[in-house]
């Protein structure tokens, strides 16, 4: 009998320990309104951080507690949290396919329904950027940082050395490859190991050759959309560039997250670098004299002969976005809405973004651009994004996560020659019906 009670007590103790553990994991939440926001470290972290800090000191009853996470880890954490009903009030995202997933699962609320007058929320933003936060005609997400078009950066010193001009057509680009190689300079830097930098080449080439309709058909899940001649031609051109030695030796071992790809450009090892506009602040941070001495050039992606796409089209991320969680309480939603109306993209918010080398997607800031440290560059990015007939969201964000994963894996095999352009089209076509 004594053994019986002892056993019961031990079991109870064990169970209590387990319960305590699980309870400890479940409790969280700050004071104030209880509203919280998760965003990314790096990039525009400081802008977002200081915006919440000043908001909280001015509006203690509508305070929002912000936490910051590293990019890749965040992408997986946020999905698990949303699925488990533990999402933050304000969810940081990219728009596109991911946002559509959240909307379809009923995990985010239309921001337009939280306010009486929708225009006070949306009026200040550039419509093309706002669009990425719209699903089925309703605004679900608002831009919270700078526009991120993909640009062709180049090293002016190296271009001077061989007496060349930056390429404006694909043929010029291909002609430059052997000229740089003769000088022992790699034509292009790329962080192949991170896989997504390779995607930028496919995005631009498909757009230049076939126009935005090609990818529109892919996003619409039209059968055989990946076998469009423009995709195949883009694949062939990528193979031609790789075979000609366009990318730096060992490019598949270079990771973009360590900044080793950008370093190749400013250490004079590579002449050109195709990257999103977020590369500028990080180069400014790592090699400020490279920019201040005027060695960094930037231009748009070259045109392709007989291509249907408008050369003014751009690809990249229009911005990042805030969405409001459907699981949040009324009080939390109220705090979030008030912040989105009054705190987001306020004058000081816009100024901080500009200071850090980011271009906010708001209307009528042309004049403010000229008073910054980098007026030429910021105006270039602003005009490029504001005047683009089509600003295409990065494909890995626009597609469903499953298709995006297949795309990155297959594209890497296209680059390395394990897959032919035809095989690439076929492999991607097989992902079409899956949803």
């Amino acid at each position, binding site marked *: 009998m004594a053994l019986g009670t002892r056993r019961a007590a031990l079991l109870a103790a064990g169970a209590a320990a387990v319960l305590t553990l699980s309870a400890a994991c479940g409790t969280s939440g700050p004071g104030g309104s209880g509203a919280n926001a998760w965003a990314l470290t790096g990039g525009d972290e400081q802008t977002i951080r200081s915006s919440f800090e000043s908001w909280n000191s001015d509006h203690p009853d509508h305070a929002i507690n912000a936490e910051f996470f590293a990019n890749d880890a965040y992408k997986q954490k946020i*999905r698990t949290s949303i699925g488990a009903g533990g999402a933050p009030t304000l969810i940081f995202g990219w728009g596109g396919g991911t946002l559509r997933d959240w909307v379809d699962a009923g995990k985010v609320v239309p921001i337009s329904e939280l306010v009486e007058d929708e225009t006070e929320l949306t009026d200040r933003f550039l419509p093309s950027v706002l669009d990425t936060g719209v699903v089925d005609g309703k605004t679900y997400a608002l831009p919270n940082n700078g526009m991120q078009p993909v640009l062709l950066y180049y090293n002016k010193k190296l271009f001077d050395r061989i007496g060349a001009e930056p390429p404006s057509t694909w043929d010029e680009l291909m002609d430059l490859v052997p000229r740089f190689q003769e000088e022992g300079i790699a034509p292009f830097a790329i962080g192949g190991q991170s896989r997504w930098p390779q995607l930028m080449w496919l995005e631009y080439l498909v757009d230049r050759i076939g126009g935005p309709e090609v990818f529109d058909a892919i996003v619409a899940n039209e059968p055989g959309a990946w076998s469009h001649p423009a995709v195949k031609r883009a694949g062939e051109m990528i193979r031609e560039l790789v075979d000609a030695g366009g990318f730096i030796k060992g490019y598949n071992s270079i990771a973009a997250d360590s900044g080793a790809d950008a370093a190749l450009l400013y250490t004079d090892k590579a002449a050109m670098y195709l990257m999103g506009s977020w590369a500028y602040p990080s180069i400014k941070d790592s090699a400020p004299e490279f920019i201040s001495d005027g060695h960094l050039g930037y231009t748009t992606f070259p045109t392709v002969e007989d291509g249907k796409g408008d050369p003014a089209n751009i690809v990249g991320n229009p911005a990042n976005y805030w969405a409001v969680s459907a699981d949040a309480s009324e009080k939390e939603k109220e705090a979030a809405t008030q912040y989105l109306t009054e705190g987001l993209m306020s004058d000081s918010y816009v100024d901080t973004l500009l200071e850090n080398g980011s271009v906010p997607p708001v209307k009528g800031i042309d004049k403010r651009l000229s008073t910054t440290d980098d007026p030429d560059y910021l105006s270039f990015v602003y005009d490029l994004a504001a005047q683009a007939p089509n600003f295409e969201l990065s494909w890995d964000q626009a597609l469903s996560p499953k298709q995006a994963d297949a795309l990155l894996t297959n594209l890497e095999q296209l680059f390395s020659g394990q897959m032919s352009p035809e095989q690439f089209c076929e492999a991607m076509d097989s992902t079409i019906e899956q949803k």
Partner: protein
Amino acid sequence: MTTVTDSRLSDSGAGARRGGPSPVMAAPALVFFGVFALVPLVGVVALSFVYWDGISEMTWAGLANWSDVLTDPATLNAIWLSVQVIVFSWLVQTPISLLLGVFVAGRGRYRALLGVLYFLPMLLSSAAIAIAFKALLDPNFGMSLAFGAESLAKDWLGDESLALYVVVFVIAWQFVPFHTLLYQAGVRQIPASLYEAAQLDGAGTIRQFFHITLPQLRYTIITSSTLMTVGSLTYFDLVFVLTGGGPGDATRMLPLHMYLTGFSSDEMGKASTLAVLLVVTGLALALGLSRWASFRRGSQLEGA
């Protein structure tokens, strides 16, 4: 790993009947094992029969995930890569750690010092090791620049035919110290009298190694091999940080394939199926190895 504990458990169970500690002492451990191992396992089995992307409603899939996974070339590729890693890891690690273990087990102050140096990698986390090697292997800024040797500037992690071997090498760098420790302990268990007798009979160092050390280490070899083989099925963190499964799918081994299917492609059902497959393979391997070992069980001090 599980089976090693299991066989010990049954031994101590026999001891309990002879008046050892009551099995109730194991209750807290059993409760934790149940909550953190059995419950999730049952959950994963259940998930392998549904379609679920992590946030939408689950829908019944029947055996669709299973037939998908078992016919998917990506799974076969992942299994084939895992088999290669198991075989190569064993072939690389076993001789090195066996010889190092024998060497370090010997007497002499300098050996103790060397032993400490050999064990250093054990102190580092997999993530730290992966990040360090990634920096070293960078073709432009890595060891080729540090040592000024152009021949080291290879596309180590970006070449499909090379990446897997580099991964096996880094895994070996991380785990050889652990297995060396096992062998060192094994060697120190061998009675000195065996060597004294052999010396009297005029056997040299090499003969002693092949006729005394190696046979006496039989069970250590089996233990170390079991840990190595089953461990190879769980190498995840190191590969995840080092290559992320790339280039292409050249290092997308089974555990990594499971993770990416679940948390990158958001196919939780399919990922759960892969997880069940991993558990079954791991258990089968561990059980098979220990069965084989106990079938051949003889006296540890055979010939003494």
